[in-house]
């Protein structure tokens, strides 16, 4: 009986090992199963999900106009002080003072890409874009001013 157990032990053990080797052997001989993505080479065809949260940007239209009113809702919503809005007062043609943004400072190095600022924004002035190549040589380059120079608020946005 002992010998029978012994032999069946050896047999089952070897059989289980061969089963595993058959699986790995299958993958060795089937090169179409390879799943490697050749990242820098496939940049042209690389398609990220459109919702991918990579970076906060402020869309500007052709007239260099944005929709940010400077209400600082995003600044308040941000959990880690990524956004800082500096406001100024523009003089409208009617001679009235109007609040506008001077600089929308966005610190990418502090951002956790949690999307809370986007949901907080009442005028859809900022949005997330699927851009993930953020490497720069100097950390200070990650502090960005999102409103373009000379841009102004779109008409009719309060």
């Amino acid at each position, binding site marked *: 009986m002992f010998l029978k157990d012994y032999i069946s032990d050896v047999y*089952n*053990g070897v059989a*289980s*090992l061969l*089963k*595993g080797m*058959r*699986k*790995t052997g299958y993958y060795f001989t089937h090169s179409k199963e390879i*799943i490697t993505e050749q990242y820098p080479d496939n940049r042209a065809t690389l398609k*990220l*999900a459109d*919702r*991918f*949260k990579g970076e906060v940007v402020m869309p500007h239209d052709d007239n260099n106009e944005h929709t940010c009113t400077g209400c600082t809702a995003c600044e308040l*919503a*941000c*959990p880690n002080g990524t956004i800082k809005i500096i406001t100024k007062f523009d003089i409208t043609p009617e001679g009235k003072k109007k609040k506008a943004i001077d600089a929308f400072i966005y610190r990418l190095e502090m951002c*956790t*890409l*949690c*999307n*809370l600022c986007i*949901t907080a924004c009442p005028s859809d002035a900022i949005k*997330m874009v699927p851009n993930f190549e953020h490497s720069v040589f100097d950390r200070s380059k990650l502090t960005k001013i999102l409103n373009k120079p000379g841009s102004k608020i779109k008409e009719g946005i309060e």
Partner: protein
Amino acid sequence: MYNETEIIKDTTELGPDGELVINMGPQHPATHGVLHLVVTLNGETIKKIEPHLGYIHRSIEKMCERLTYRQFIYVTSRMDYLSSHINNTACALLVEKGMQIEVPERAKVVRTILNELTRIASHELWIGAMAMDLGAFTPFFYAFREREMITDIMEDTCGARLTMNYIVPGGLMYDIHPAFQTNVKAFIKQFKEKVTEYEDLVTGNVIFQSRTKGVGVLTAEDAISYGCTGPVARASGVSCDMRKIAPYDAYDRVEFDEVIETDGDSFTRYLVRVKEMNQSIRIIEQLIDNIPEGEFVGKTKNVLKLAKGEFYQRVETARGELGVYIVSEGGTTPYRIKFRSPGFSNLSVLNHISKGSMIGDLMATMGTLDLVIPDIDR
């Protein structure tokens, strides 16, 4: 923790009775992160294990005291980063409980599906890492191939692959991706085909079985006394699935089995996780065609304020029971918040169950406890 002179003493001299003291970690291939174990050895046999924590302590509990009820959810993704969705759900559920926010059915069902997908992804990663701890490199890549499909689904819908922050108090941050259902179905199909590969490569393998069977045996009494939860406790025959005990979201309307085994060794813990993946697939299959139409987020006030009092919410993460305990003074931020993380209790049992085994067994035990260090340290 040791001061400098003690560290030098530890690494150059033998302990009393000629014991060998090894500092395993904080940089060690098998501790998966920055866990530091001071292992006392007698030859190859382990006499004592003493965990030293704190290498990735970020004081999340203190941080959360400064964050509002909308903001603190994102931090919890960084605790147990492999089940970040479930952590987020726990916090959202707690805020909803505290404020009596009505969550739309659609949000509930989507949350459940995402939670189960997260659980599968976490277990997939665990299988790969565990096999790697035991010296088999290849299953890691096969497991990651399936996990990649889940992260792609997450990326489509939530916009992130690991720390999603998709759950907000009241529902979801935005609606699911139009291709969500087809992608999940494609994943289920592939998963069912490929799950047999783990059987061939890992489960049935005679070396793997001999490495894990009878290793790190945890009895039911010890599991209860040490506060173990999740697959670790269920492998010892302790029923502790929060999805069954206190159903949340859509778990009360789906059929699934709580996987309970009784042997309590490393191999059983492995089996429980593999079977749990199949149960997760079962849950997803029941829900994926029945996502109700409608709103994805309930009506909430702009500023969330919890009533004065104490709130506790338990959910089942991939590692066990996550408890969120909030003491509210009625303000916009929690007065005190405590995360009862499953890994913390599961780690405390490590010394008990690996005493007397070998270094090689420690890898199997530690692997099957499925420790995530940021979850332990918080």
